C-alpha cells in the first residue's frame, strides 16, 4: 500500500494493525501448506519416477515384439490383425480429494480375454503377433497407471507453485507494505500530537503575556 494513499487517522491505524495480524497468520498457514504439499509431493515423485521407467521399458519390449512380428509375418498381416481386434479399452476418470485438491482417479477397463475372443483368426495369425498384442496390452495398463500418477503430480506441482507465489507475495509485498503504512500513520499521528502540544504552549504563553 503506497503511503500517500493512507489517511493518517487512528481508525486507519487500528485497521492496519488488524490487517497486519491477519496477513501474518495467513502467511504462517500458507507456509505450512506449502511444506505439507512438498512432503506429499516427494512420495508421488518416487512413484512417478518408477512408473515412467516402466512405461519406457514396456514400450521398448512392445516395439521389439512388433518389429519381430512385422519382420516375420509382414506388415499387412500385422495390420490386418490390428484392425480385426474386437476389444476396446475404456477408462473411467473420477476424482478424489487430497488436502482439498481434486486429483483424478483413473480406472481402466482393459479386457485381456482369451486369444479365441480377440477377433483375429487363431490359425492364420502367428504367435509373434499375439505376443506383440499382449506386450501392447501390458504397455496400455502401465500407461493408464502412469497417467493417473503423473496427473496427480502435475496438479500437486501447480498447487505448490501457486502456494509458493502466495507465500512470497505475502512475505515480500503485502506484509512489508502494511508495516510501512503502519509506521507512516504512527509517525504522522505522533507528529500531529507534537504540533498540538506546541500550539497549546504558544497559546498559553501568548495568553500569559496578554
Amino acid at each position, binding site marked *: 500500500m503506497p503511503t500517500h494513499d493512507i489517511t493518517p487517522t487512528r481508525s486507519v491505524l487500528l485497521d492496519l494493525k488488524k490487517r497486519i495480524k491477519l496477513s501474518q497468520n495467513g502467511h504462517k498457514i500458507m507456509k505450512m501448506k506449502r511444506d505439507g504439499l512438498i512432503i506429499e509431493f516427494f512420495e508421488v515423485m518416487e512413484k512417478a519416477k518408477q512408473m515412467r521407467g516402466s512405461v519406457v521399458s514396456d*514400450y521398448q519390449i512392445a516395439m521389439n515384439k512388433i518389429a519381430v512380428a512385422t519382420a516375420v509375418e509382414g506388415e499387412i498381416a500385422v495390420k490386418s490383425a490390428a484392425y480385426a481386434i474386437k476389444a476396446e479399452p475404456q477408462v473411467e*476418470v473420477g476424482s478424489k480429494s487430497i488436502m482439498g485438491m481434486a486429483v483424478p482417479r483413473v480406472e481402466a477397463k482393459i479386457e485381456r480375454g482369451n486369444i479365441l475372443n480377440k477377433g483375429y483368426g487363431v490359425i492364420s495369425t502367428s504367435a509373434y503377433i499375439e505376443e506383440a498384442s499382449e506386450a*501392447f496390452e501390458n504397455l496400455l495398463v502401465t500407461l493408464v497407471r502412469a497417467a493417473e500418477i503423473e496427473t496427480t503430480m502435475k496438479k500437486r506441482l501447480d498447487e505448490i507453485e501457486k502456494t509458493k507465489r502466495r507465500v512470497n507475495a505475502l512475505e515480500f509485498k503485502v506484509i512489508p507494505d502494511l508495516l510501512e503504512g503502519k509506521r507512516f500513520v504512527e509517525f504522522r499521528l505522533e507528529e500531529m500530537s507534537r504540533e498540538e502540544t506546541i500550539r497549546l504552549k504558544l497559546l498559553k504563553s501568548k495568553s500569559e503575556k496578554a
Partner: protein
Amino acid sequence: MEIAVIGNEDFVLGFRLAGLRRVFVATPENYGEVIMKAMSDPNIGILAADGKDMDLLPSNVRQKVLDSVQPVVVPVGRGETDLREKVKRAIGVDLYKTEDE
C-alpha cells in the same frame, strides 16, 4: 472415456493391436494441428503420444499439451524431461539430477 493414441503409422499400429480405436495418425507437418484436435475431444481421457514427436511442437503448444489434465497426455518412449522441467520450476531444485550428471 476412451484412450487415444497419436503418432505416425508405425507408432499407432501397435496400439491398434492392443485394441485402441481412437487413433490419430499425424505427420511431422500437421502434428500440432492433429494433437489440438485430439485434445479438444471431451471423450478422450488419456492420450498416448510419441515422446519424440513432442519435440516437434512449438514450445508454447508443447507446454500446453504437457500441462493438460483433461485429457492426460502421456509421452511414451522417452525419459522424464518434461516432468523434470516442471519440478525444477515449482520446487526450485532439479530433483531428477543423478549423481553422475
